[in-house]
């Protein structure tokens, strides 16, 4: 299930707000299942400034290359080295060990523009319906 305390984008990234205006970022379970086995991640290095909804990296899986968008603006504090070494973590644990980067948010109120977990559930349910039409 999509964690309740996380916020979600329409591009299927999540951000988990942390104390001190920080946030951990990853991709959703829906995104990883659509992508298939992740083989390579191109993530912004620590110190990079990212902007909400702008491209910040790429994810390559066995069947697709997908852009990764920043769910909020700020500076990259940390990159998850474990996921660089073993990209399969994104598939196995997208909301836990498969996190991608940690951000220092420059404008925390941007998170209000994101979906909560219920809304994101509805959003992907709709996507599923469009697909089956």
């Amino acid at each position: 299930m999509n964690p309740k305390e996380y916020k979600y984008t329409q591009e299927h990234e999540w951000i988990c707000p942390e104390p001190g205006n920080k946030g951990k970022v990853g991709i959703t379970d829906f995104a990883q299942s659509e992508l298939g086995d992740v083989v390579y991640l191109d993530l912004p290095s620590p110190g990079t400034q990212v902007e909400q909804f702008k491209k910040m990296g790429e994810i390559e899986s066995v069947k697709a290359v997908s852009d990764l968008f920043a769910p909020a603006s700020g500076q990259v504090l940390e990159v998850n080295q474990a996921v660089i070494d073993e990209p399969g973590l994104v598939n196995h644990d997208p909301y836990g060990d498969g996190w991608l980067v940690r951000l220092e948010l420059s404008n925390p109120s941007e998170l209000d523009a994101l979906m909560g977990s219920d809304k994101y559930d509805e959003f992907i349910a709709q996507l599923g319906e469009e697909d089956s039409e």
Partner: protein
Amino acid sequence: MTEKDIVIIGGGPGGYAAAIHAVHLGASVAVVEKDSLGGTCLNRGCIPTKALIQSVEVLLEARKANELGIEIGNITANFSKIMARKTSVVNKLASGVKQLMKADNITVYNGIGHILPPQLVKVNDEEIATRKIIIATGSEPAPFPIPGSDLPGVLTTDEVLELKELPESLVVIGGSYVGVEFATIFNGLGTKVAIVEKLPLLLESIDEEISRRLAQTLLRQGIEVRLRTTVKAIEREGAVLKVVGDTPQGEQEVTGQMVLMATGRQPYTEELGLPQLGIKLDGLAIVVDERLETNVDGVYAVGDVLGKSMLAHTASYEGEIAVENALGRSCQADYRAVPGCIFTHPEIASVGITEREAKDSGIPYKVSKFPFLACARAVTMDETAGMVKMICNAKNGRVLGIHIMGPHASELIAEGVLAMQLGATASDIAHTIHAHPTLSEAVHETAMGQLEGSIHFQRVP
């Protein structure tokens, strides 16, 4: 006194290619070489390292043979046999060059060439009169003057090729292509390898995206990569050498049984007599015009001694251009399409400008990419890591750069080089039939990505 049309000082890929081309054009030629024909490339560079890399490739293949249904028992890398084979490959190619010189009646003088004004070259006690001179003296490892750089166990790239035993661990100082190739070789054979580089990226001149991919690939292969680390000293600490460097996080150290200095090369002009001749230098490099002539009439210079890209194929090309000009034709060196290849696993190859250079130049450009995992041939080979990336002028579609990381990238780049040399567009490549199933389809698909889109790959929005 012997008289020649052209005397070429230096018998490396610049010098010997120039000599043979000059003979083809009807000139009488002599080559002066102080060491062995073939130069750095054949004796201490491209060739011996590629021979070693081939052994590593075979080892890696053997290890995954089981997955492809080939059962191999015990697999062992025998370092002394690997090194002996490397030497025999070098000898075979060196005798080939010797043979070519003989067949073309090119006199080879063994010794250091001094230029005596106006038109005389002196080797040992012999003087050769000549109408034209081509300097192709190449380069040598640049000194890297830090405390401890002369300790036993600190090797130059020449010395590392003569090792008798595989070191347990090796610290490679310098993340240029030379450094990453040696790191790949030794890591592949079982040495614990760390690369230390002062810049934030490996292989500074290649596309950043590919550089980042390479850093991750090396990490997964077990190579430790330390970027932003400026080495300031090497110290002996018992059985190991300690490399100490400054990083943004403060002083750090990494230890190894041996240390390899892959810290760059510099033009070699010693004893040529350039000051007496009044030849213009830029630092240590000889300055030439676009016809590759120096400021002294009739004296040309080619290859590493110009202090630019220091690639064997550039030197050979320049050798031919210099000969044409020396023999009264007029042509200019054209550097629009110079390929560069790095024999890591997978290989990296590129031509033209990087995405960063496109961005900085202000030209409107478009980037397309195609991953090898969507290329059928790569899947059959089980070599799907990497991609082709193409940068084209967004207005007219002309190819500005191609960057490949993947299986046989060094061969695939040839199509991109030809495309750039001819001023071809992405559409030209896309409308060229590429054989199926081959890796070259990845280049084709990348070109299609510049137009309406690749056939075998969709970007997930």
